[in-house]
């Protein structure tokens, strides 16, 4: 490995002292190939992050991001025109009304249809449409379920946070086809993200008003052949 390649790896790993880093910065400014080498090392090493267990962020962090983006330029903001355009779109589309959205989240408690998003921008390729549903179960601070449907893999990504356990109940997630029976997506574990492969017949109908329901069940979930427990929250998918 050449000295330059070593330097690139050291820059990618951020191993250098501040002084060395400053010197290297000058070198980077006049050496686009070195920038490429650094990016290559970054890409090579980044998969190490897969070894860490995922940590679900506080729901407030997303809220802060949308608020920051909806604000006019921050003082540390030196981004380009593209970012400005996105910003304008963000303000126009959904996040300008952050307060209204937050109110909708709080109101959506106990079985009321929750957060039904407006139709997202048109997507050229229908096969690429992704859908989302959010089920805040108890307001801002309370339990939260975020579902994202990935059409390529037909996977449903289920994220649950702040779902309390009382030691005698579990929460179970169901998908409901209009005029059909609910199909269990399993018991929810708080603080985790998991993927559930959707059966083809459900995947086909997911964009036609498939409902999402969270129920409270005995530990381990609803008994087979029995009826589901009380509905804790419900929602619908919408295209994003």
């Amino acid at each position, binding site marked *: 490995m050449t000295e330059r390649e070593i330097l690139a790896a050291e820059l990618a790993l951020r191993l250098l*002292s501040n002084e060395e880093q400053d010197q290297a910065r000058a070198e980077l400014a006049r050496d686009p190939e070195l920038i490429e080498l650094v990016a290559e090392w970054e890409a090579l090493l980044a998969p190490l992050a897969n070894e860490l267990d995922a940590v679900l962020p506080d729901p407030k962090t997303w809220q*802060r991001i949308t608020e920051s983006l909806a604000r006019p330029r921050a003082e540390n903001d030196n981004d380009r025109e593209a970012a400005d355009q996105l910003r304008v779109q963000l303000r126009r589309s959904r996040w300008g009304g952050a307060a209204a959205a937050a109110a909708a989240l709080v109101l959506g408690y106990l079985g009321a249809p929750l957060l039904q998003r407006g139709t997202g921008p048109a997507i050229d390729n229908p096969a690429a449409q992704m859908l989302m549903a959010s089920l805040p179960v108890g307001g801002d601070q309370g339990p939260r379920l975020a579902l994202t449907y990935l059409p390529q893999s037909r996977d449903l*990504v289920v994220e649950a946070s702040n779902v309390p356990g009382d030691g005698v109940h579990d929460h179970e997630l169901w998908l409901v086809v209009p005029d059909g029976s609910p199909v269990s997506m399993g018991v929810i574990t708080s603080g985790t993200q998991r993927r559930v492969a959707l059966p083809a017949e459900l995947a086909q109908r997911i964009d036609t008003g498939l409902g999402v329901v969270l129920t409270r069940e005995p530990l381990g979930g609803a008994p087979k052949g029995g009826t589901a427990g009380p509905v804790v929250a419900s929602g619908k998918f919408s295209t994003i």
Partner: protein
Amino acid sequence: MITADSLDPLELALDRLAQGDAAALELVYRLSASRLLAVCLRILGDRGDAEDALHDTYLRLVAKANGYRHGRGSAMGWLVTMARNIAIDRLRSRASVGLAAPVDTAEALPDPEPTAETRLLTAESDTRLDGCLSTLEDVQQIAIRSAFFTGLSYAQLAQQRGVPLGTMKSWVRRGLAKLKVCLEK
């Protein structure tokens, strides 16, 4: 030709964001935030700081939405690098204003075995990198992993490990050289 089917969902969402589709940011966030937070938390050791770094990462992403290049690593890897750099900047600015960085020593290494769930969620399970790292000498592998996960400099790693600076540099450099050869095979 790249089709929707050939892309991972995160890559697709990043493309949409780069094309000015603001709604795609939420999807990017949902698909990546928990992994990026894990990276930030590992480096910063403080939940509040890590959430702040996560916030800054998505703001930077909006500013650099068209920076991801297909074919050079995964979309997740690109975001991990961005989050890691932001967390390290934060760590170093914290150190420069005299606040002690929460540096654990031997515990700085990640859990040796990822959980089944993490594996399941890993879109880019890079067995090649794992395999190549395992061919390094223990001290080399540990030094490189520590550097990645803690964001510490050579001097800090040497101090943490109680070895001369030159020894740490030598471990890392030899390890990297060997890693490169293995990855290029």
